[in-house]
């Protein structure tokens, strides 16, 4: 299995889309963090407060979405480009391939989350320094948020692998990820607050320190006073969804004829 994971990591390292999505994740996170920090003191708490700084340094949601998109591309791309034949010729056990892809993509996804967490923290601290304010958020807390962003992105990347295997149509899968995370969860979370902590993307964003609902987009954006799931419970929830998607894919689409 170790060799198989190394193979999948080498595949990821030799795909331009891996770096393109990472660059996009870092750029968009930096932009969101700057916007959040620039608004601090008006509609949101000032960046000099722990809450305000926390808001600016935990905007890693887009990086998590892009990690999920990477997962979809990694698996559905094999069918789109007919490279699945070569993969299955080398490793006929398709479930092992799926497992290796999930692990490898989760590792790369973690890098997306960590990079986004570091960038968001750097931007937040830069705004703080620009205003000459003291850092009110503990170092351990900030490191925890960065690590949590890595964990959230890793889990969503693995979820994307399961989704891509299940759908196999790349464009539909990628659009599906954006629509689910940016529209459906925003609507569901905004209208049915009781289920908000249990929505997978929302739960993943809370791993990175974001408040419940802060990862939502558009009209659905509303920071809830409701408690997010504890870290381990949120992580287990996203992991369970990823495992469920992969299990269904392993029993259905992954077993299909490769023609």
């Amino acid at each position, binding site marked *: 299995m170790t060799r198989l994971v190394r193979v999948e990591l080498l595949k990821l390292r030799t*795909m331009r889309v891996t770096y393109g999505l990472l660059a996009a994740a870092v750029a968009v996170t930096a932009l969101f963090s700057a916007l959040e920090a620039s608004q601090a003191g008006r509609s949101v708490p000032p960046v000099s407060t722990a809450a305000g700084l926390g808001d600016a340094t935990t905007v890693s949601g887009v990086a998590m979405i892009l990690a999920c998109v990477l997962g979809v591309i990694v698996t559905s*791309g094999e069918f789109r480009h007919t*490279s699945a*034949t070569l993969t*299955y010729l*080398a490793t*006929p*056990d398709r479930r092992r391939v799926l497992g290796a892809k999930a692990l490898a993509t989760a590792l790369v996804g973690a890098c997306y989350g960590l990079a986004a967490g570091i960038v968001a923290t750097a931007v937040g601290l830069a705004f703080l320094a620009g205003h000459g304010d003291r850092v009110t958020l503990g170092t351990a807390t900030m490191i925890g948020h960065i690590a949590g962003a890595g964990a959230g992105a890793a889990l969503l990347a693995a979820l994307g692998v399961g989704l891509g295997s299940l759908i196999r149509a790349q464009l539909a899968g990628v659009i599906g990820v954006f629509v689910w995370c940016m529209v459906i969860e925003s609507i569901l979370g905004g209208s049915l607050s009781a289920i908000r902590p249990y929505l997978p993307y929302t739960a993943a964003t809370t791993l990175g320190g974001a408040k419940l609902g802060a990862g939502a987009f558009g009209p659905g954006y509303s920071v809830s006073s409701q408690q997010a799931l504890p870290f381990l419970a949120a992580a287990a929830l996203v992991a369970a969804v990823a495992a469920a998607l992969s299990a269904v894919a392993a029993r259905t689409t992954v077993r299909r*004829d490769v023609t």
Partner: protein
Amino acid sequence: MRAAAAIRGTATGLAGAAGMKGRLIMSSVIEVRGLTKRFGEVLAVDRLSFTVERGTVTGFLGPNGAGKTTTLRMLLGLVTPSSGTTAIDGRPYRELPEPRHVVGAVLEASNPYPGRTAVNHLRIEALAGDVPRARVDEVLDLVDLTEAAGRRVGQYSLGMRQRLGLATALLCDPEILILDEPANGLDPEGVHWLRRLLRQLAGEGRTVLVSSHLLAEVAQTVDSVVIMDHGRLVTQARLDELTERATQAIGVRTPRPVQLAALLAENGASARLAGPDRLEVTGASGEMIGTLAAEAAIPIYETTTEAAGLEDVFLQLTGNSAHQEVIR
């Protein structure tokens, strides 16, 4: 072409060749038994059975749509048969512990990720097959792609992709090669190069199963043929047996063709009137025709052997005139 030199150099690059010669035992290395595949209403492969002997080059022939690719994909565990079994070295492909080391395959519609360079694609395959990085350079040289190794596969021509497919198949130095229409996209020089490569690989004692819809494409290379049409086995024969069948028509010029035709028919031969004084006879030797004609006092002015080509036999066997233009 540098590939020619590279082929000459494969004795060292494709390690273990000498050892393979020692394994030239005539035993079935590929076995297909009662293989059937149905895609909905379409019966793609129908109770197909054949074997491939170790150390031989076998042409897997049939018109387009005969079911060759589906059969090869079932053999390689990519398509699940509706019924029947396949075995390579005595077990299904999916049960081979290191399949790339046993079988190298080039299949249609199996391209590397187009955004990846050829060398990176081979590095991945080398890692998957647990072979050293240096082997990547060897196979690139073998298929004459060293200079293009840094280019993305998406920029490759069809012929270059076929060469890269062959490099991938040879990477783990397998004893068995399964090649699906490997000449597709190759220019005449490339086809010539491929023939030499196949002969080289066969000379090293490897077992090669190569599919084609053109008999002429593989006739110079193969020892035997498996011919299928409409999903069914038409014949499995050695090439020399097929060649014998190809030269059995005899042209006879006689002033009494109708009488001679009737006489031949009585004796189990088949004669077709090919002109006012000409017959085309099959199923009878020249001696038999001469003796029968002499006994009946029928003069014979001339006999000629109608050398029907292998392609004619192939067309007769597959019996599908719709494909004749393609095959010719």
